[in-house]
């Protein structure tokens, strides 16, 4: 799997992502600069976390217009796999590659803590090493992770099974109005969504920060290992 990580000014989790990818693929991913206008041949593009352009105006708004995003869009249209994490998810929604938007956390504070995610379907490249309903732990660290979309969009996402992950209690129950277990106040406790073809996934928490027992566990590793299985090593 040849992976490329897009770096915008203010991106700050590209190293975490590179470490996670290298752990499962054995090779360092390509680092792509936001001003590039061509892509190397890739199996996976990752938009990592951080504060692109300072997250000024709206998180991800300015990055969504970067020159390289035209290539990312074409890559998506051609059926390529894209993972957007945290700021990367925000950029994908701002670019309208994924539906919805991410508002300020309901309690208006930056939240840096572990959360539990429930896997909503297991037949995608991102989730194939889990079973539907599995719960895994992952760190989250964001100020704007409160997922919203208009009712019609939510209905479509739910109807088409495009919710990737939901915030959940460790036992897998989901309670969208329980602040302890849907900490940022997301609609339907949505933590991540898929594109229509299930090849693009955006999510707020950081599985890439939990791929090493030394850092507290490997709960996030199946996501990356699954991608390798689906897209080849």
């Amino acid at each position, binding site marked *: 799997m040849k992976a490329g990580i897009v770096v915008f000014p203010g991106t700050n989790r590209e190293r975490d992502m590179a470490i996670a990818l290298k752990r499962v693929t054995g090779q360092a991913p390509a680092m792509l600069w936001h001003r590039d206008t061509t892509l190397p041949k890739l199996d996976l593009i990752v938009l990592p976390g951080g504060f692109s352009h300072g997250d000024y105006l709206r998180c991800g708004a300015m990055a969504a217009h970067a020159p390289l995003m035209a290539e990312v869009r074409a890559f998506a249209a051609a059926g390529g796999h894209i993972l957007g994490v945290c700021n990367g998810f925000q950029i994908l929604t701002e670019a309208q590659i994924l*539906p919805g938007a991410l*508002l*300020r956390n309901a309690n*208006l504070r930056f939240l840096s803590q572990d959360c539990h995610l429930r896997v909503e379907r297991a037949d995608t490249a991102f989730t194939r090493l889990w079973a539907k309903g599995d719960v895994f732990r992952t760190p989250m660290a964001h100020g704007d992770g409160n997922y*919203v*979309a208009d009712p019609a969009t939510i209905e479509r996402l739910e109807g088409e099974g495009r919710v990737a992950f939901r915030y959940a209690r460790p036992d897998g129950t989901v309670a969208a109005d329980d602040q302890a277990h849907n900490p940022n*106040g997301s609609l339907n406790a949505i933590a991540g969504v898929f594109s229509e073809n299930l090849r693009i996934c955006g999510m707020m928490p950081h599985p890439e920060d939990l791929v090493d027992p030394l850092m507290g566990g490997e709960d996030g590793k199946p996501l990356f290992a699954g991608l390798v299985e689906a897209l080849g090593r």
Partner: protein
Amino acid sequence: MKVRVTVMLKDGVLDPQGKAIAHALHVLDFGSVGEVRAGRVIELEIAETDADKARAQGDAMARALLANLVIEDFTVEVVA
């Protein structure tokens, strides 16, 4: 000319910031306050002397970048 673009969340989109402000104002004894909505304002100097053209530019910039039309509405005024 100077153009002001005001961006507010669409009606129906929950506004946690507005809610928090309303709550804080009640705690401060401003009991007469009802609904509160929070938004952004962006003031732009535009090298343009025609008010209509300046407004049209403000509109274009709002659509291109300043507002996220999925969740936000905007208005444009020429202020100077």
